[in-house]
């Protein structure tokens, strides 16, 4: 039962109205199906006063004091032999848009560089441990479509920072993605369109989102909107470095498009003004074609 105090807390008060249980079923033969479709529905009214937004504002998240900041760096390394993937579209292959096979279109779902480093791995803080979160930069992040590939293939943006999808090819592309928490996007980017189309995330995503082009089925790229700046995509040699991480015990997510979660929660204690160097290894078997 709700007291007045709890009502203030919740901002939502239930009000059960007369629920007339239709007794029509009694006296008539009842079916095994019950009275699903023909049952007279009853209604309970639930008030919404204030709503969640006001409550969320009224109780600011407790912010832990952060003594300082440190660096997290290292490499993601493939453990075991991995043979390079064949091109999605070989150079000179017959295709409806000649520009696409002018150069080979590589299969970027697994890119292993020097010393078995794994590229395009997303490493990002699962949640902000406290302290100040710098505001999102206003300048857009550009994702070009060139030679029927998305460039860059993997990118991290901030919530509120526009993504700008361009087209440097003489043929039409579209960019389409359906994120979990934000509105979907499916826009044609006409030939040689350098102005492009913008999309700005209003909410962070838990895992990277796949963007595709429907004109060229092989085209795919990944982007990840974060509510904080502490995320990075590994370079060609699998190396990564995140500067200015809050100096406390933090949890990183390590995610790759083929391996899915490499780690759901990589706990690292960041020393203030110091650095942690870590090698993250991935079994080659996890990168095999699914």
């Amino acid at each position: 039962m709700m007291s007045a105090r709890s009502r203030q807390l919740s901002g939502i008060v239930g009000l059960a109205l007369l629920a007339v249980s239709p007794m029509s079923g009694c006296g008539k033969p009842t079916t095994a199906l019950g009275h699903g479709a023909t049952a007279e529905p009853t209604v309970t009214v639930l008030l919404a006063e204030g709503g969640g937004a006001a409550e969320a504002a009224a109780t600011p998240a407790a912010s832990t004091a952060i003594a300082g900041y440190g660096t997290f760096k290292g490499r993601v390394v493939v453990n075991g032999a991995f043979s390079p993937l064949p091109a999605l579209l070989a150079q000179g292959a017959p295709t409806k848009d000649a520009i696409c096979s002018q150069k080979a279109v590589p299969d970027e779902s697994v890119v292993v560089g020097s010393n078995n480093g794994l590229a395009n791995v997303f490493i990002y803080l699962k949640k902000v441990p406290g302290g100040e979160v710098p505001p999102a930069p206003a300048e857009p992040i550009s994702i070009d479509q060139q030679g029927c590939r998305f460039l860059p293939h993997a990118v991290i943006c901030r919530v509120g920072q526009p993504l700008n999808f361009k087209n440097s090819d003489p043929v039409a592309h579209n960019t389409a993605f359906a994120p979990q928490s934000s509105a979907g996007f499916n826009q044609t980017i006409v030939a040689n369109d350098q102005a492009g189309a913008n999309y700005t995330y209003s909410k962070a995503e838990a895992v990277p989102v796949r963007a595709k082009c429907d004109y060229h089925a092989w085209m795919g790229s990944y982007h990840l909107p974060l509510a904080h700046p502490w995320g990075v995509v590994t370079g060609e040699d699998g190396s990564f470095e995140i500067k200015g991480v809050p100096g406390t015990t933090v949890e990183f997510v390590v995610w790759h498009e083929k391996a899915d979660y490499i780690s759901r929660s990589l706990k690292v204690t960041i020393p203030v003004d110091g650095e942690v160097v870590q090698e993250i290894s991935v079994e080659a078997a996890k990168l095999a074609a699914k």
Partner: protein
Amino acid sequence: MKKSEFSIGTRSTGTARGRAFPGALTAGLLAMVALTSGCVRHDAEFSHREEYNELIPEGQEYVHKVLGTYFGKPTRIVAWEKLPLKLHAAVGTVGEGATSLSVPVNFTQENLPLRPELEAAWLSGNLFQKNDTPALIEAIGENGSVMFPDPGLAQLPAAGDRVAIGPGEVLKFGRVLYAEHCLHCHGVSGDSHGPTAPYLNPKPRDFRRGIFKFTTTVAASRASRTDLSRTIDEGIPGTYMPSFKLLTPDENMALVEYVLWLAMRGEVEYQLTGQLKNDYSNEAFADRVKGGESAAEIRKELTDAVNGGEMADTFNGIVDTAVERWVAAQEEASLVTPTVKHLEATAESIARGRALYLSKDLNCVACHGEAGLGDGPQTYSITKNSAGADNPTPGLYDDWGNLVVPRNLTTGIYRGGRRPIDLFSRLHGGIKGTPMPAFGGKKSDEELWDLVNYIMSVPYEKRTPGDGSKEAKPAEAPPQVAAGG
């Protein structure tokens, strides 16, 4: 939602039920009597998403309780006032000079004709949740005063109190109509798994993502009420969705609200399960245990998040976002509005449209084919799903994982309607949830009208498309079979 409202993982029956009127209590007693006389009422249940079944039991329990509390069951509807829907027959505030037999009401919303035997429910003020029997109205008097039969109201509402006449009546009405007309294809939950659905192609719409394909709103926007209303009225030509023009405007309105309500319920479940599955799906759970966390700890983490109110913030955020998007979709700014009038379908305009159709800029040919038969090269390509894995068969897929065929433009059948503005909206905003992209903003409105003129001319082309040198060949007549042969 308050902190102590949900407790999962324990044997609790905590739900956000307020104080019930004795009426509800009476119903309970009646039901008990009914039980003893061997008459059982089985409540219909909403189905859950597939992702729900992949959650650990604590996660399932939480999602089930939340949806049950804020949306109820198919025959036990919860009309949650936070949702931007027309819930009640009418809503208003009490004016000055109420007597026990007549209460003046300034109506702010009148959704259904008011009739006797509707209840008046006081949503605020002294009478809110008072222990008296619900007030059944007798009639609506002049200047909007609500009349009550003798002996009238035991207590008077104060001026300014909010009142709902026929609380939840629109949803109730919508539910009955939905059960009669829609449920056998679209399913009880609007999940497109009704009993008839397996035999249909294309599949019925699954409302639970909040995505509707044929809209007159811009690319980034949800569907408007008008769009849903039109779809119910006109049906979707070329599919199993028939026209329901014989329904009255009130019935159409109630159905739209009920479908929107199912869409919002589905959306909340989609988001909740989507957020929980990253940490609390069976797969994640197994992964985390393998990574050295203890099973009990993971379960405790979830129950703490629910019981400590962290999940409440998540839930509120989800609902707020859904509400904002549906509200925004109803605004005029979300409508596709051409800046120029529909150009006359001259030969020049059609030729310009054809050039656009073939142009590298739009490349309609990739899916719809040179002749507009819906057989472009993309229909033979192996495409990938949102996880980057190959789809099971060649061709294009929509967001629900169904194989979709680009429209064959030679038939003159247009799913979203055959008015020029319908085609214009389709080109401008795309078809939501499908590979058909939006061209709005990338091509001028004049160019889009040219394209509309061309598309509408395709079924009437005298020659087969191509080089223009071949005469169209009508199909040969089928061989005649003698009756009984």
